[in-house]
């Protein structure tokens, strides 16, 4: 099937009639539609699915262009229409879907009838319409809805799948495998035979035992049913536990990662603590040093301040020639005595009025009690002593003070560093809290495991009891002909169930492995063998690094990785669908198919883009991609020789966007 043209009329923000022609050239099979996020790419992608199947994921279900609504007068009608021209099986089709809207008298917009038509060109080249009752069938032939999902991939689905992939699971993979298997009939049979619902063949047989013949049978049946209910309840809870475990495990991984990332935050916090302690020490040192300085000051300040005065005083005293005139240990009494005795110490005669006498009288002035000479002498000595202290005071204090100043500088530096760290930490989530949460979730996990183990134990017990009852009941029923028949029927149903179930599991595993292989081939070509994919039987996806040396580049964001996986997935599924000779996918085998998708190129590393751009056109014969304005250059650089048509979204305002042909 190839898409030729899309015609929109008043569809969402695409006001009026707007046409998109797609490149159907075999060489230049890529149509590029560029627009910023929010300009209408997803809307346009959904136009396809709405046209073909009447489905959209829009929150606001109203299709009608709001710009048009604004111009409607009450009691008037407007139409939304999307027409898709395509070619399938050599027939040219036009798929038309219309939705009418009326604005009632009160100004409310009401949706009225919708119309779905398939027109085609018959052998004579004339336009005919497929009968209304047959349109659904024809649509299934052209492109069944279940498969359409692999040809229309919008950004949101990519986003959701990407999220799932990051968590390591993918419903899309599971669904794809089932679709590719084409064994839905067998699945239906399995469910009908012994599915989990109340309506299954075996359950019905269980219920139909005739219990009148033997009360015990009824009782056993009742007990068996009770056990089965209990087992079913446990199974439900076990499933819940698995989900809760997954959530808890996710959270643990998440938190552990964040905590690791914020190991830096912890380091910062540690450093801050260390700095705080250093600050405290500094404060202490400063206080101690200040105290020491002040003690020195208090002790010697007096001497220090009076140093100059002392110098001057000494000078003055020496000027007055008073300095050396005292005689130690001589008192006035001694002089009086000498004068009285008339003889000096040295033997010389002293007579009142003579030179010796006058000298002695003068001496009186210098000796106690009159004298101040001794005092002066003492004074001088004190001066000399104090000067010694005074000399060192200023230097001491200068030294101590500069130490204190150093403390202050270091303190200020550390404070600044602490502030910087606090700023940084403010931006980071609290590691302590995360650790607490991590512990909480780890505990939750442990509890869940404990619960699970207990439940499994219980379940085992119930199963044993139930089976015992079944055996006992069998013995009883076999005695009764009617009930015996039921046993037989049940046996057949059970056997069929076992066989079909085993078959299905086996085929599913095969298909899953094949899908894994196909996806990996494509994945490898994007990644040069650096990574590969593993899908287990629960559709848990794991991305494995194969070759550390072969892949020496920087590790990509997991977004880019996921998107690569998605590309590889789509390519793989389509490839398999076309290889399958499966009648359900028959229509895919012989014809080329288009791929319409959002291409978030900028999420990719530059080298990947080349490979992706190479892979895309190989995956499908016709590629229609939506890209962001900013990725336009990238697309041009890598795909320009394959691009047949270019369009641009021109967003005028919230309600009006126009599609404009480019280049």
């Amino acid at each position, binding site marked *: 099937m190839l898409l030729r043209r899309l015609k929109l009329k008043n569809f969402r923000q695409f006001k009026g009639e707007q046409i998109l022609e797609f490149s159907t050239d075999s060489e230049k099979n890529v149509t590029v539609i560029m627009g910023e996020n929010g300009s209408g790419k997803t809307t346009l992608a959904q136009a396809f699915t709405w046209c073909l199947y009447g489905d959209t994921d829009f929150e606001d279900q109203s299709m009608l262009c709001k710009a048009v609504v604004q111009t409607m007068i009450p009691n008037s009608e407007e139409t939304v229409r999307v027409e898709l021209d395509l070619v399938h099986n050599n027939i040219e089709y036009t798929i038309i879907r219309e939705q009418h809207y009326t604005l009632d008298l009160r100004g409310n917009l009401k949706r009225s009838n919708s119309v779905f038509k398939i027109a085609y060109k018959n052998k004579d080249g004339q336009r005919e319409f497929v009968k209304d009752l047959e349109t659904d069938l024809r649509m299934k032939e052209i492109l069944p809805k279940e498969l359409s999902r692999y040809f229309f991939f919008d950004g949101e689905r990519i986003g959701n799948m990407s999220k799932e992939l990051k968590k390591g699971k993918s419903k899309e993979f599971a669904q794809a495998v089932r679709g590719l298997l084409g064994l*839905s009939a067998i699945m*239906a049979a399995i469910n009908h035979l012994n599915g989990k619902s109340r309506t299954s063949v075996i359950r019905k047989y269980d219920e139909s035992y005739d219990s009148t013949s033997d009360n015990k049978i009824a009782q056993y049946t009742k007990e068996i049913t009770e056990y089965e209910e209990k087992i079913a309840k446990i199974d439900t809870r076990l499933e819940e536990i698995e989900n809760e475990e997954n959530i808890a495990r996710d959270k643990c991984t998440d938190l552990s990662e964040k905590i690791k990332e914020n190991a830096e935050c912890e380091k910062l916090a540690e450093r801050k603590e260390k700095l705080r302690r250093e600050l405290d020490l500094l404060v202490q040192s400063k206080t101690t040093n200040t105290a020491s300085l002040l003690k020195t000051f208090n002790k010697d300040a007096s001497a220090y301040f009076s140093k100059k005065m002392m110098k001057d005083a000494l000078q003055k005293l020496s000027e007055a020639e008073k300095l050396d005139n005292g005689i130690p240990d001589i008192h006035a009494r001694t002089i009086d005595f000498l004068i009285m005795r008339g003889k000096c110490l040295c033997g010389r005669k002293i007579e009142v009025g003579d030179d010796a006498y006058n000298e002695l009288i003068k001496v009186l002035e210098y000796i106690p009690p009159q004298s101040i000479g001794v005092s002066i002498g003492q004074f001088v000595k004190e001066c000399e002593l104090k000067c010694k202290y005074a000399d060192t005071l200023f230097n001491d204090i200068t030294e101590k003070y500069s130490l204190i100043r150093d403390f202050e500088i270091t303190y200020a530096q550390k404070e600044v560093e602490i502030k910087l760290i606090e700023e940084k930490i403010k931006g980071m989530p609290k590691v302590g809290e995360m650790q607490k949460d991590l512990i909480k979730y780890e505990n939750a996990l442990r509890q869940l495991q404990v619960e699970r183990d207990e439940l499994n134990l219980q379940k085992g017990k119930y199963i044993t009891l139930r089976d015992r009852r079944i055996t006992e009941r069998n013995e009883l029923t076999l005695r009764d002909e009617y009930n015996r028949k039921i046993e037989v029927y049940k046996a057949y149903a059970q056997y069929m169930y076992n066989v079909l179930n085993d078959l299905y599991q086996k085929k599913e595993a095969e298909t899953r492995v094949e899908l894994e292989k196909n996806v990996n081939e494509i994945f490898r070509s994007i990644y040069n063998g650096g990574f590969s994919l593993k899908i287990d039987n629960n559709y848990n996806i794991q991305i494995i690094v194969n070759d550390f040396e072969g892949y020496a580049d920087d590790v990509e964001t997991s977004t880019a990785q996921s998107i690569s996986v998605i590309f590889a997935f789509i390519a793989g599924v389509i490839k398999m669908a076309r290889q399958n000779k499966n009648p359900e996918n028959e229509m895919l085998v012989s014809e080329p198919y288009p791929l319409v998708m959002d291409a978030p190129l900028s999420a990719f590393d530059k080298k990947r883009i080349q490979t992706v751009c190479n892979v895309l056109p190989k995956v499908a014969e016709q590629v229609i991609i939506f890209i962001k304005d900013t990725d336009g250059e990238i697309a041009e650089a890598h795909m320009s020789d394959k691009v047949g048509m270019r369009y641009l979204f021109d967003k005028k305002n919230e309600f009006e966007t126009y599609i404009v042909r480019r280049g």
Partner: protein
Amino acid sequence: MDNTNSVFINGIEIDTEKAYRLMRRLVIKEKINIKTKQYNDSEMVRMIKKMIEEEVQCY
């Protein structure tokens, strides 16, 4: 009943050939029903039971 084709389920002997015939018929019916959506689940279950009972009773 050919003994080499018997299998015991829950102490009951069943004929695997009959079982396979049943399975084939069942799968075809299911396949048609998926396309036509003619019967709902309980109807399908009833049909299957009838199929089994008929096959068992037949020679």
